[in-house]
C-alpha cells in the first residue's frame, strides 16, 4: 500500500526545516523526514535529549526554527530513513510507525553531505576520524574525541571546531590549513563584504587559538599517520599549489587524534533515483542536480536545497529551503499568486550567500595532491580493505573505468556503498590512466541507500514470514 502525501521534505537540517516551514506557512500539508533522532541536521545538531543544559548559539537558533516548524503543523518522522526512490515520486521508508512507501505530490530533498576524506598511509588507524565526527560528539554528547588533537583539512569550520575543542578542554597540537589562503584570498575580498557574522565567529575562534598558542599553519597538510593499534604521531609537510607535499619539509608531530576536514560531498543518490539530471561540479562537492531559480530539479515537483545540492553552508541552505518551500507549495496549489513575488524578495539574500559559496569554493577546494598521498599498501576502500596496489593491478589487467575496477577489486562494494571511497578511487584511476575525474565518474549508488533490514523492506515482521504449509 502506498500512502499519498502532499509535500515531503527529506532531511531536517537547515535546508529542510526552512523548506518545511515555508511550505506549511503557505498552507501545504508537509511531512518532514530525517534519519536522526532529533531535527537539526549537522549545523543545528541538538544535544541529546537526556543532556540538560545550556545549548550553544547554533543550537538555540535551531531550536527556535524547530519550534516554528512544529507550530506550523509540520508532521515529523524522526529516525526514518528514505532508502529508495523512483521517478513516480515514490519513496521507500524504514522507520518505526511510518508507512513503508509514500507517494508525494512534491518532494524537497535537503539531504546534506558527508565528509570528503583522503587516503594517506595510516588513515585507517583508530584515532583518525572526520572533523564532523568530533563536531557531532561535542555538540550532541559533550564528549571529546581524544586528548592531543591535530586538525588537518581546509576551510573556516576547522578553525571553529579547534576553538570549541580548546574551550572544552582538549589540547589541540596544531591546525593545518591546506589552502594557501593569503595568496588567493585578496581576490575574494568583495565577497567577504557583509559576511560580518561569519567573520566574527572566525575571529573569535582565531583569538581562542591564539591565546592558547595553537599553531595555525597555512599551506600545510598531513602526509601520514602512524602508531601501534592507534594514532601516536603524524608526519606533516608544506604543500605546493596542487596540495602535493614539498619534499624535505616534513615534520613529525605527536598526537592521539587526527581530525580530517577536507570539505563535503553531497548526498545526491535520491535526486538521481528520482530522475533528476545531474552535473559534475567538483568545487561544489561533486555530482549535484541541475536546478532552476526555484530550486526545482529537471523533474517537475522535485526540489533540492542545501549542501546536498551543492555545498554552500547553513545560511545558503536556509534561503534555498525557503524558496523551495514556497515553490513546492505553489506547485500543489497554495498561494500560487504570491509565490513568484515572495521568491523574488529572497533574491538579494540568495545572491549574497551564493557569492559566499563561490568564494568558499575558490579558496577551499582541495588540489589533486590530496589524492596522491597513498602508497601501494594504503587502503582506499575501508570496508573491503582494498589497497592502492590492488587497484593498480586491476588497471594493469585491463580495467580503465570505475565500474571495472569495482568488479575486479570489490572497491565500493562494502557496507558504506562506496560513499567513503568513490572519490578516492576515481581520482586514482584518473591519475593512473590519464583521464579526468569527470570521465572516470563516480560509483552509482543502488537502493537501498543504507543497508536495510529485510523485514523492513518486506514490510512483514519476522514472525509473519512463515507461509502456510501447503
Amino acid at each position, binding site marked *: 500500500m502506498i500512502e499519498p502525501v502532499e509535500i515531503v521534505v527529506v532531511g531536517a537540517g537547515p535546508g529542510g526545516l526552512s523548506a518545511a516551514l515555508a511550505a506549511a506557512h503557505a498552507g501545504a500539508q508537509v511531512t518532514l523526514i530525517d534519519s536522526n533522532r532529533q531535527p537539526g541536521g549537522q549545523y543545528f545538531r541538538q544535544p541529546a535529549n537526556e543532556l540538560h543544559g545550556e545549548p550553544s548559539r547554533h543550537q538555540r537558533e535551531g531550536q527556535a526554527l524547530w519550534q516554528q516548524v512544529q507550530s506550523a503543523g509540520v508532521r515529523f518522522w524522526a529516525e526514518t530513513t528514505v532508502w529508495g526512490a523512483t521517478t513516480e515520486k515514490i519513496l521507500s521508508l524504514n522507520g518505526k510507525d511510518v508507512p513503508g512507501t509514500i507517494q508525494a505530490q512534491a518532494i524537497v530533498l535537503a539531504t546534506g553531505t558527508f565528509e570528503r576524506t583522503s587516503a594517506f598511509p595510516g588513515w585507517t588507524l583508530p584515532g583518525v576520524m572526520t572533523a564532523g565526527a568530533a563536531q557531532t560528539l561535542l555538540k550532541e554528547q559533550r564528549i571529546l574525541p581524544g586528548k592531543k588533537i591535530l586538525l588537518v583539512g581546509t576551510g573556516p569550520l576547522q578553525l571553529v571546531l579547534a576553538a570549541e575543542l580548546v574551550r572544552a578542554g582538549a589540547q589541540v597540537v596544531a591546525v593545518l590549513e591546506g589552502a594557501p589562503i593569503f595568496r588567493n584570498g585578496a581576490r575574494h575580498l568583495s565577497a567577504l563584504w557583509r559576511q560580518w557574522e561569519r567573520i566574527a565567529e572566525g575571529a573569535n575562534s582565531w583569538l581562542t587559538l591564539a591565546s592558547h598558542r595553537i599553531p595555525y599553519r597555512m599551506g600545510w597538510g598531513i602526509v601520514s599517520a602512524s602508531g601501534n593499534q592507534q594514532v601516536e604521531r603524524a608526519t606533516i609537510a608544506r604543500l605546493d599549489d596542487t596540495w602535493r607535499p614539498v619534499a624535505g619539509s616534513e615534520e613529525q608531530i605527536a598526537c592521539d587524534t587526527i581530525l580530517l576536514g577536507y570539505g563535503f560531498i553531497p548526498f545526491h543518490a535520491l535526486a538521481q533515483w528520482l530522475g533528476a539530471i545531474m552535473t559534475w561540479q567538483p568545487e561544489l562537492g561533486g555530482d549535484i542536480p541541475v536546478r532552476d531559480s526555484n530550486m526545482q530539479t529537471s523533474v517537475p515537483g522535485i526540489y533540492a536545497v542545501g549542501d546536498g545540492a551543492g555545498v554552500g553552508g547553513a545560511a545558503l541552505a536556509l534561503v534555498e529551503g525557503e524558496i523551495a518551500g514556497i515553490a513546492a507549495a505553489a506547485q500543489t496549489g497554495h498561494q500560487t499568486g504570491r509565490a513568484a513575488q515572495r521568491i523574488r524578495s529572497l533574491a538579494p539574500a540568495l545572491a549574497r550567500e551564493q557569492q559566499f559559496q563561490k568564494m568558499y569554493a575558490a579558496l577551499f577546494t582541495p588540489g589533486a595532491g590530496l589524492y596522491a598521498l597513498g602508497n601501494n599498501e594504503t587502503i582506499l576502500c575501508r570496508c573491503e580493505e582494498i589497497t592502492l596496489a590492488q587497484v593498480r593491478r586491476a588497471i594493469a589487467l585491463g580495467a580503465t573505468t570505475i565500474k571495472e575496477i569495482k568488479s575486479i577489486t570489490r572497491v565500493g562494494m562494502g557496507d558504506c556503498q562506496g560513499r567513503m571511497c568513490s572519490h578516492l578511487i576515481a581520482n586514482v584511476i584518473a591519475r593512473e590512466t590519464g583521464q579526468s575525474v569527470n570521465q572516470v565518474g563516480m560509483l552509482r549508488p543502488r537502493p537501498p541507500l543504507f543497508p536495510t533490514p529485510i523485514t523492513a523492506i518486506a514490510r*512483514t515482521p519476522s514472525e509473519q514470514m512463515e507461509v502456510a504449509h501447503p
Partner: protein
Amino acid sequence: MNASRKMNAPVVIIGGGIVGCAAAYYLSKSGVQVTLLERSVLGDEASGRNGGGVRQQCRDRRERGLAMASVRLWQELQATLEPDIEYRQGGNIRLATDEKRLSDLRCQSEEELQDGLPVEMWDQSELRRRAPYLAEIFLGAKYCASDGMANPLLVSRALGWAAQRSGARILTHTEAFQIEIQGRQVTSVLAKDAQGEFVIETPQVIHAGGPWTPHLSQTLGVVVPIVPARSSLAITQRMPRLFDEFVSSHDLGVYARQAREGQIHIGRSVSEPGETFDQTTPLPTIEKLARGAAQMIPALRGSNFLRTWTGTLENTPDGIAIISAVDGIAGYLIAAGFSGHGFCLGPIAGKLLSEWLVEGEPSMSLREFRLARFQK
C-alpha cells in the same frame, strides 16, 4: 564517413557479454585475430549482472547437452583464467512446495538420468538433513551435485582480457551501428567510438548483442525474435557461511546463493512481465525479493539488504538460444537470445562458434538453435 579510419579483421565479434568474450577467447586461442566491439565495457549487461548460476538440471532437453559440455569448460576456465572467476560446484537444489511440483521434478529427473546427468530426488526428511538452513515449507527437491556458480562480475572480463593477451583487439566504448553486405557476403561493420565513426572491413561477423541483437540485425534485413525483460537481484551484507548450493523455488519466485565473500545473492526465478530495456529496480520487486528470501531461508530474516540491481534478459519465443547462420548471408553468425540461461552456456557457445569458423563445423549439433525454426 571518415575514410582515414579503416581497419581490417578476419572476424568481428559484436557484443562483449559472456558469449562474445568466450568466442573471442576460444578464437584467439586458435590463432584467429578477432576484433571485439562493445559499446560499454566488457560484461556490463546481463553477463555481469546475473544470478551467477551455472546449472545443468531443469533445462529444456534441447539445451541439456550444451549445458553439460559447458560445465566441463567451466572447470578448465576456473583453473586458467585471471582474475579468479570464483567458479565452484556446490550443487543446485530445485525446491517444491506442493505435490504437483514434486512430481514434475520427478519426471524430469528420469529424463535427465537418461541423458547422463546425475541428479537426485530428495524427500522432505532428506531435504531437512541435507539443507537444514531452508524453511520447513518444502516437500522435497531435486538436486544436481555438479551444478554450481561463478562470479559474473569477473568472468566476461577475465575471458576478454585473456583473449586480448592472445592477440585479440578489444574495443570497448565502441558501438556497431551497421553491418554491410555485398551480394550475399558480409564485407564490413560500421562502428562509432568517442573519436567518431569508422569502418572495419571483415568477411565474418559474430553477432552476440544480447537483447539488443534485433536492432542491428535489422540493418541486414534479418528479423531476430528476441525481446527484452528486466530481472533484478539483491544482496545482503556478509553473513556467516550458511550454504554452498544454489537454491531456487519457483513457488516462492526466488533463488539464492552465497557468494565466496559471504554475501547472499537473491534473485527472482520468475521473470517480470513486460518488454522493457528499463534497468531501474522496481520497489515492489525489491519487496518481493525480501519476502521470498525470508520465507525460503529463515536466517535471512535478521539480515540487511546491502544493494539491488537489474539486468536485461533476452527472451526468444521458445525459450532457448539462437546460435545460427542466416540463410542467404555468408559470413554472419548470430549467438544471442539465451533466454536467461546464457551465463551457464556462454563458454560452450563461444567454443562452438570458434570451432565453426576454424574447423568449418562445430563439434556438437546446433540444429535446435537455428534461426530458421521461427521462420515457418
